[in-house]
Structures are given as structure tokens and as C-alpha cells.
């Protein structure tokens, strides 16, 4: 048995960094704090790689399966006799994989930020928040139990909030951060309720117990039925709701495009590579329960994923803000991952979807981070987000151009880049399970290629617009990460995921299924071709198409009015029709009653003042009648 207890330092180190930078950051020189942050992250990246190596290649397998190793565990809070919240480190294939993903991307982003954020006010704050995020995200993936996951789930939410709102004086950034937080918080409510139901039924939070296919949690089955679905299904649906929120699936996707208000490195790290896939990770983490106890919930996962990916892809085709395009693309890709999980089974080849999902998560992290960082470099150069204001940048930004192209090809699924492999596995899994979903994803693959190259051509080709300053290539701190990630995007496709990350930890055989692979490559190429025609040079085709599909375009451009719907619900219904009436009710009815008691007392007091008339004889009259009435009362009426 290998001792993994040092892994606790992987999340702890960023936490300490956060404390250091948060409390003393403003006293340090900005550069120093940046170096502290980056250096710390470099250390944990190395640690993560060591861990990955040790875990995958030297740890002992039982019956050919990777074991879940609880490397560290302390009880943080004892709730009931059986339920307790632990904090610890759980190592299993997916968490180790996530370690690698997070630390790699995070390190790249840190390095990138040294250049990108240079001279910004609040540099040290930025690195403090990044450290906080790294801590939270690592804590999330290493969680030993669902409650720990929830804790860090909330923490990543907050870090995301802080980072989106980094430019806190910009109203749009503030709005976006608020929106992100509240939407995900609402989704987290579902997560929490799911946890409550789950723990009530299974009396445990612990992942190892929960997800052991032979364990008591799964053995007890779905539990009693409630409103047509079993309790376990309900709880899993609720838990998934949390994932939907964090991963920006429909209908909780609306926060993600707005979140692009944050600094671009943040978008790359949080809103592309790591945090947004937490939902996928969550489902993967709970996968045995989904597969065995709540298959209906798994179907929900599949359909939500498929719909989101289509929905987002359509919108992405119409957006002009490059970061928003990437954001919708992210939604779309995460939809893929969800779908893959949704169509997966447990164990062996049945678990293809699971493996594919994780695989895609991995590759997506690389190329999407690359895309965002590239976009950052572009924005850094031209000081705008809108692709209508760009064009012909390939001359000015050669490195960025090349890496961006690689990323676009990767996401379009062109072999032999990594995106091809992972996407192909997903399509294959869908193909075997559900033809409808496969069809949807097939179309999305084409759309993806189309909008990515629409983006690519508009930025680097097309008509050259007039720039205030001549755009120039970014400094080395920014280009090196681009190159590293580009290399990653190219080669990660060759990692044998079927041997490393599978649903039951055992190796299974996969091969490229040509019946799926060839059409998918073709449709990718088709998409690229259309984009080439439309955007390579200035052309009116796009406008004409937009005119033809006027309403569809308009709807897609306006993101199907989801924001407006949300606004309507929050502003009108919650605020106008609930909160304000509640406040009114409280002031006027509840409080009014209390005040009324007081004023009634006062007015009674005023009314009866006539008794005290100052007239002696009236006093005497009351006296006499009082005595007589008392006498009558007690002699005849109430004896």
C-alpha cells in the first residue's frame, strides 16, 4: 500500500496561500504575490503528477480494478450518530485525473495571468482568489463524502463569484457575478435537498459506502416511491440539479455567458476547464447510484445534456462576442459529457459512455482553456471582445493564431487531435444506446465545427479592421501557456483512458468505430467548409441566411429569451409579487395588528373618559348601580 497521505497538502497549500495573500497580499509587492501564487501552484502540480503516476502505475489493483483510496480523513462535524461530515482526500481514477486537469490548467492560467493581469489594480487579490479557487476545486474533486463535496461546491461558487466580479467597479461585472452566484445557489439548493434525501435513506455521506455496487446504499434499492418515482431517483434528480447549475446546463445555463465579464484567465480556468465540469464530475462520482438505483435520473441527465448541447450550439452560431461564443461552446461540450454519462452503463464496455465522458472532460479542459487563453491574448491585443471589430489578426499574432487554430480543429473533432478521440467515443456510446440522442449530437458536432470556424475566420481572416494600436503578440508569460496547452490538445487524445478511467476501475477494450467516426469527421469538415465560405472573406451569405431564418436567428441571437424569462421571474414575480407584498403585509397587516391593539387601547381609553365626568352624583350613581349589579349577579345569576 502506498502512502498517499501527503496529498492533503495538495488542497491545503493553495488555502494557505489564500490566507497569506488575502491577509498580507496588499503589503507585498504585486509581483511577489504573483510569484507566490504561481510557485505554490507549481508545487502542487508536481505533487499531482507524482500522485497520478503513483496511483495509476504503481498502486495495487484488486481484481484488476483501481481501488478507491481514502488517503486522509478527519471528522469535521458530527451530525447524527451515523451522519458526520468528514474532510479528507479520496483518490480514485477520476479524482486523480481531475487533479491533473486542474493543476495543469490552473498552473497555465497562473503563468498566463502573470502577464495578462500585469499592472492591474488588485493583482495580489486576483492571485489570492485564484488560490482560493484552486483550493476549493481541489477539495471538491478530492472529497471523500458528498457533504465535503457540497462544502467545496459552495466554495468554488464563491470563488467564481469573486473572480467574475473581480472588476467590481464595473456594473456589468457585478451583475454577472451576482447572477452567477444566485443561479448556481438555486441549483445548489437542489443539491442540498438531494443530499438530505439521500442521507436520510442511506444514513451515510461517504462516497465509498455510497458507490460501492455491493454496498448497503445501493443494495437497498430505490426506496419507497414518492409521486411515481422512487425516493432514490428523486434524490439523484435533486443532486443532479446542483450539477446542472454548476455546469450551466439548460435551464440554469444563463449565468455562464454573463460570467465572461470576469478576467479572461478566470474564464479559462473556471468557466471552461474546471469548475463548470464539476457537474459532470458529480454525476460521475455518484455514477453507481445513478446506474443501479436511479436509472430514470440517469435518463434525465442524458436528455438535459443533449438538449443543452444543441441549444447552446445554436446560440453560439449567432453570438459576436468571442468569449460568449466560447461560453456557449463550453455549455455545448459539457452537454456532450452529460449525455455520455447519461447513456452509459456500469462496468465493462457498458461503461463506455462514462469513460468517454471523462475523456472528453480531460481533452476539453485542454483545448477550451487554450481557446480562452487565446481569446485573452486577442482581447489583450485589440481591446475588444467583439469579433465584428476584428479581422486579419493572423499577421499580428502568429503564435496565438496557430494555437487557436489547433484548438479549433481539436474541438471540431478532426483526427488525430485529441477532440476527435473523445468525441468519437461519446458518439459511439450514444449510438449504441439511443439513436435520437446520437442524431442530436451528430448535428451538434457539425454546428460546433461551424461556429468555431466562424469565430476563427472572423478573427484571423476576413476584412482587416482599423485598430487604434497595432496589435502585437502577447508576452512570453502568455504565449508559453498557449503553446503548452496546444501541445496538450494535440497529444492527450492518445492517452489510453479505457485502461485508466473507467466506470468500475477495470480495463476494457475499445476501438475506433468507423461507422461513427467517419460521418462525424465528415460533418465536422462540412461545418468548417461552410464557415470558410461564409467568413473566410467578407461575404453576404451570412446576412442573407440570417434574413431567411429571421425569427430563428433573432431568437437564437437573443439566446431564446432565457435571460428575459429569468428577469421576469426574479424581478416581477419574486420581487414584485412576493417580496414586496410580504414586506407590505408585514408592515401593514402583522405590524398593523400590533399597532391596532395599541390604538384600540388608546381609543377605548378615550371613549370611556366620560365615566370620569367630574360629577359627584354620576360617581355615586356608578357606585350604587355597581353595588346593585354585583348583588344581582352574585345572588341570582352566578351563584
Amino acid at each position, binding site marked *: 500500500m502506498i502512502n498517499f497521505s501527503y496529498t492533503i497538502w495538495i488542497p491545503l497549500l493553495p488555502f494557505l496561500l489564500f490566507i497569506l495573500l488575502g491577509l498580507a497580499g496588499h503589503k507585498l509587492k504585486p509581483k511577489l504575490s504573483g510569484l507566490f501564487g504561481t510557485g505554490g501552484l507549481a508545487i502542487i502540480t508536481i505533487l499531482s503528477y507524482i500522485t497520478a503516476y503513483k496511483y495509476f502505475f504503481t498502486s495495487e489493483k484488486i481484481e484488476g480494478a483501481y481501488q478507491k483510496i481514502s488517503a486522509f480523513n478527519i471528522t469535521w462535524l458530527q451530525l447524527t450518530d451515523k451522519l458526520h461530515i468528514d474532510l479528507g482526500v479520496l483518490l480514485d481514477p477520476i479524482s486523480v485525473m481531475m487533479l491533473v486537469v486542474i493543476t495543469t490548467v490552473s498552473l497555465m492560467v497562473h503563468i498566463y495571468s502573470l502577464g495578462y493581469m500585469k499592472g492591474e489594480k488588485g493583482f495580489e487579490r486576483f492571485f489570492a482568489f485564484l488560490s482560493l479557487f484552486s483550493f476549493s476545486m481541489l477539495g471538491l474533486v478530492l472529497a471523500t463524502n458528498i457533504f465535503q463535496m457540497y462544502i467545496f461546491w459552495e466554495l468554488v461558487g464563491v470563488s467564481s463569484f469573486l473572480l467574475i466580479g473581480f472588476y467590481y467597479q464595473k456594473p456589468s461585472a457585478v451583475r454577472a457575478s451576482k447572477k452567477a452566484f444566485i443561479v448556481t445557489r438555486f441549483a445548489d439548493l437542489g443539491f442540498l435537498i438531494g443530499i438530505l434525501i439521500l442521507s436520510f435513506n442511506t444514513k451515510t455521506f461517504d462516497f465509498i459506502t455510497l458507490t460501492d455496487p455491493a454496498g448497503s446504499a445501493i443494495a437497498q434499492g430505490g426506496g419507497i416511491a414518492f409521486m411515481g418515482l422512487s425516493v432514490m431517483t428523486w434524490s439523484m434528480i435533486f443532486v443532479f440539479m446542483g450539477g446542472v447549475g454548476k455546469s450551466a446546463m439548460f435551464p440554469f445555463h444563463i449565468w455562464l455567458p454573463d460570467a465572461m465579464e470576469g478576467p479572461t484567465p478566470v474564464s479559462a480556468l473556471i468557466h471552461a476547464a474546471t469548475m463548470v465540469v464539476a457537474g459532470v464530475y458529480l454525476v460521475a462520482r455518484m455514477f453507481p447510484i445513478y446506474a443501479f438505483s436511479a436509472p430514470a435520473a440517469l435518463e434525465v441527465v442524458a436528455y438535459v445534456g443533449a438538449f443543452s448541447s444543441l441549444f447552446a450550439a445554436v446560440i453560439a452560431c449567432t453570438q459576436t462576442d468571442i468569449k460568449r461564443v466560447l461560453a456557449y461552446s463550453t455549455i455545448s461540450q459539457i452537454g456532450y459529457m452529460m449525455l455520455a454519462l447519461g447513456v452509459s452503463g456500469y462496468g465493462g464496455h457498458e461503461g463506455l459512455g462514462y469513460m468517454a465522458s471523462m475523456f472528453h472532460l480531460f481533452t476539453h479542459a485542454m483545448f477550451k482553456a487554450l481557446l480562452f487563453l487565446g481569446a485573452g491574448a486577442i482581447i489583450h491585443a485589440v481591446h475588444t471582445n467583439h469579433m465584428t471589430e476584428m479581422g486579419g489578426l493572423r499577421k499580428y499574432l502568429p503564435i496565438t493564431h496557430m494555437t487557436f487554430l489547433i484548438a479549433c480543429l481539436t474541438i471540431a473533432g478532426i483526427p488525430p487531435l485529441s477532440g476527435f478521440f473523445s468525441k468519437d467515443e461519446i458518439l459511439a456510446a450514444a449510438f449504441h444506446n439511443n439513436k435520437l440522442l446520437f442524431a442530436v449530437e451528430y448535428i451538434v458536432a457539425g454546428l460546433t465545427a461551424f461556429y468555431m470556424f466562424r469565430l476563427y475566420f472572423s478573427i484571423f481572416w476576413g476584412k482587416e479592421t482599423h485598430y487604434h494600436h497595432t496589435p502585437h503578440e502577447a508576452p512570453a508569460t502568455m504565449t508559453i501557456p498557449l503553446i503548452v496547452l496546444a501541445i496538450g490538445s494535440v497529444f492527450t487524445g492518445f492517452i489510453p483512458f479505457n485502461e485508466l478511467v473507467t466506470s468500475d476501475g477495470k480495463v476494457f477494450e475499445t476501438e475506433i468505430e468507423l461507422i461513427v467516426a467517419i460521418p462525424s469527421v465528415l460533418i465536422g469538415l462540412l461545418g468548417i467548409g461552410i464557415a470558410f465560405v461564409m467568413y473566410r472573406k467578407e461575404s453576404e451569405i451570412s446576412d442573407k441566411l440570417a434574413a431567411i431564418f429571421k425569427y430563428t436567428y433573432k431568437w437564437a441571437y437573443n439566446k431564446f429569451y432565457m435571460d428575459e424569462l429569468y428577469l421576469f421571474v426574479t424581478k416581477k414575480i419574486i420581487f414584485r409579487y412576493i417580496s414586496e407584498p410580504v414586506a407590505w403585509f408585514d408592515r401593514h397587516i402583522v405590524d398593523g395588528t400590533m399597532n391596532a391593539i395599541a390604538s384600540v387601547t388608546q381609543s377605548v381609553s378615550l371613549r370611556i373618559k366620560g365615566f370620569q365626568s367630574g*360629577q359627584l*352624583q354620576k360617581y*355615586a*350613581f356608578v357606585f350604587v348601580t355597581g353595588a346593585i349589579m354585583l348583588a344581582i349577579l352574585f345572588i341570582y345569576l352566578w351563584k
Partner: protein
Amino acid sequence: MNTGIPIQYFLVLATIMFFTGVYGFLTRRNLITILMSVELILNSVNINFLAFNRFLYPHKLEGMFFSLFVIAVAASEAAVAIAIIINIYRRFTTINVEDVNEMKF
């Protein structure tokens, strides 16, 4: 001894007198007439005491002595009341009870 007259007659008589006094107290406007009504009330009580003493409990003299002391008390009460009434008259120039209401509510 007191042949033929039941005690109830005396009691009823006293009661009527008592409430006549009360009526006077409640209606007369002149402070002195109110005082007179009070005397009626006290007198009726005396009748009660004496009747009881004579008819029912003649072995002791409690009723009679009580009446005696009531008369004495009534006298002193009347004296002080009249002193105050005269003072009222000097202050208010009237002894109409309805006008003596500087303090109310």
C-alpha cells in the same frame, strides 16, 4: 312584646327610606340637600339596627349601641361636610354639585 307588627315591616320601611336617601343623593343638586340625603340613609340604617335588636336579639344591646354611635359619627361627618361646603361656597360661589367639577376625565 311588639304585638302584631312583623319585623319585616320595619325592614321594608328602612329599605325604602334608605333608597329614598340614595335617590336624593343621586339627584339633588344642592350639596346641602345631598348631605340631608345622607342623613336619611344613616337613619334608615339605624332603624334596621334597632328593629333587629328589639325583635330578634334583645339579649344584647349591640344594635342599639351601634345606632348610637352612628348618630355620633353622622354628626361629626355632617360638621366636617358643612365646613367644607361653606368653603366650597366661598370658592365657587355656588353649592350646586354639578358646578363643582373642575377636575374630570
